[in-house]
């Protein structure tokens, strides 16, 4: 059975745990703790180690889904998790103070996952606030990382089908780049 290991990254509050919960066909392994930073992101709990879920794509391809804790103070977990991943779903919430800055920060931190497989971006909470448009996210990527092929979508992490489309786009992207020798060299 073929396997993919995909990392869900992005800032606290972007919807990483919710996305893995929506996608996973097994009970998700969660490491939630009470959030002390409700003045920054108003949610009751936050991931402090990892999330883990699994989904089958087609009949024979298992995708292992890992989620990072979004806060910088957990970056030791980022180092551990990025070693095992071969692709990244980068989620950014438009109601973050600087969503484009967060996008570029996480892409830079996890850039090796583009080289190892591929990256897709999911813009979340776009229906709640007037944030940057998809074109502005794409332009920022093109300006700072010219030549990279990174699809950008708006998604609702609670919706299985939207997350599945995002994940399938990434898996196809990884497989095409591997087939053409454009990824996996590192």
């Amino acid at each position: 059975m073929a396997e993919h290991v995909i990392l869900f990254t992005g800032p606290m509050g972007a919807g990483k745990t919710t996305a893995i919960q929506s996608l996973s066909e097994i009970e998700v392994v969660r490491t939630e703790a009470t959030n002390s930073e409700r003045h920054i992101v108003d949610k009751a709990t936050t991931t402090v180690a990892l999330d883990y879920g699994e989904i089958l794509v087609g009949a024979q391809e298992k995708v292992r889904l890992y989620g990072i804790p979004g806060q910088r103070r957990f970056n030791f977990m980022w180092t551990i998790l990025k070693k095992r991943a071969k692709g990244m779903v980068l989620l950014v919430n438009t109601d973050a103070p600087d969503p484009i800055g967060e996008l570029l920060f996480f892409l830079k931190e996890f850039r090796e996952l583009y080289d190892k497989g591929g990256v897709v971006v999911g813009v979340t909470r776009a229906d709640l606030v007037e944030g940057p448009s998809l074109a502005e996210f794409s332009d920022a990527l093109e300006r700072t990382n010219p030549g990279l092929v990174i699809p950008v979508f708006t998604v609702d992490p609670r919706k299985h089908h939207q997350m599945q489309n995002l994940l399938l786009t990434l898996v196809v992207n990884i497989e095409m780049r591997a087939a053409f020798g454009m990824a996996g060299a590192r």
Partner: protein
Amino acid sequence: MSTGLHMKPDVVEAASALLGEMKDAASSLTYGALLTDDGFDVARYPVKADGERFAGMASSMQALSEAVAHELKIGDSEYIIIASGKGHVVQLRVPGKELVLSALFDNDATVGHALATTRQFAQKMADLLR
């Protein structure tokens, strides 16, 4: 909106005093930290140590131990021990609180003594916060 325990001066003061008392009771204690469930440093011994990174790591370890206990259906994770050539790390939750006590002892302490001491001071911290 709730404020994290690491931002409450009375909690930080009590936690600092408790770690000092713990060192007086166990000379083999070389590092001790009280931290929030979500990885914020509340107090540490020695005070001058940089506790931020360790607090994040200890909170991840605590959450992973609880996830493993849940996965294996063995009840709650009561404590974590890391045994190494130069000492033991003992870590457990302050009973009933969103606080974790993590302590490093040198090899002059047995694992049993280290665990008993850490348990005793975690309970003291819980009593102080009652």
